[in-house]
């Protein structure tokens, strides 16, 4: 019999955990808009793993936790340019705003989002994406110039 942990308090816990700093510091995240009482927009950072084309690169991501988080996963997109098999490059609309080119992490191609469970956290997403960078199908992909953004 598990206790149902409501969205807002769950996000506050994630915020506090993010503020303390996670593990070796190669993934981190924080709130984008400190005034948003519903804590929807977040920025994540991944430092590319060793022995891959991503090594030493700093990738910025945007995570959006809607009202139905954590029942539903956040939408996740890369702000930094990146080539990965689970990232779709499209032109279009995101969160109702036309923003030109976006790099959406495609849930169907990224197991953690495809098989989302409410216990999963933004930390899990970032950690798993970092592992994904080191997977055989991603570690040697030709990358866009470093430090370029959408």
């Amino acid at each position, binding site marked *: 019999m598990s206790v149902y*942990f*409501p969205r*807002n*308090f769950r996000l*506050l816990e994630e915020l506090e955990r993010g503020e303390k700093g996670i593990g070796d510091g190669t993934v981190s995240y924080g709130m984008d808009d400190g005034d948003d009482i519903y804590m929807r927009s977040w920025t994540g950072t991944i430092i590319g793993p060793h022995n891959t084309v991503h090594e030493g690169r700093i990738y910025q991501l945007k995570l959006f936790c809607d009202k139905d988080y954590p029942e539903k996963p956040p939408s996740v997109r890369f702000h930094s340019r990146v080539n990965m098999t689970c990232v779709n490059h499209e032109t279009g609309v995101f969160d109702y705003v036309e923003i030109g080119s976006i790099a959406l992490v495609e849930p169907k191609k990224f197991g953690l989002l495809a098989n989302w469970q409410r216990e999963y956290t933004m930390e899990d997403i970032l950690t798993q994406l970092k592992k994904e960078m080191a997977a055989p199908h991603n570690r040697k992909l030709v990358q866009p110039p470093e430090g370029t953004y959408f």
Partner: protein
Amino acid sequence: MANSNLPRRIIKETQRLLSEPAPGISASPSEENMRYFNVMILGPSQSPYEGGVFKLELFLPEEYPMAPPKVRFLTKIYHPNIDKLGRICLDILKDKWSPALQIRTVLLSIQALLSAPNPDDPLSENIAKHWKTNETEAVETAKEWTRLYASGE
């Protein structure tokens, strides 16, 4: 959802909150989750928050009453011990928690905090600084925010 096996203590506390509400405070559990409460606190008279209706949310974690409830303001408020996300700096919500305390005592303490802001133990550094350097002006801002954000609509 997980409402069966709700501890007797929580049931008792809830019944009493509903049948004998403390003045200026209302707290009712959500239908889907009996551990999650919608709370309203009226701004105490003779405080900068007078006339305001403040919405809060409260959650009783699994460890309750061994661990304190989690509470935060949903209504924006200008107060040195409350931050932009509505988090509250109050000792009984942290290290001074005791299982002898209840939801009711927590909400009464929050109401008292509105009457007695404590800029020496701040959560919002800027607001606390404002309070210490120019209390009259800080109180005016708090009144203004109460009118703007806590008018109860």
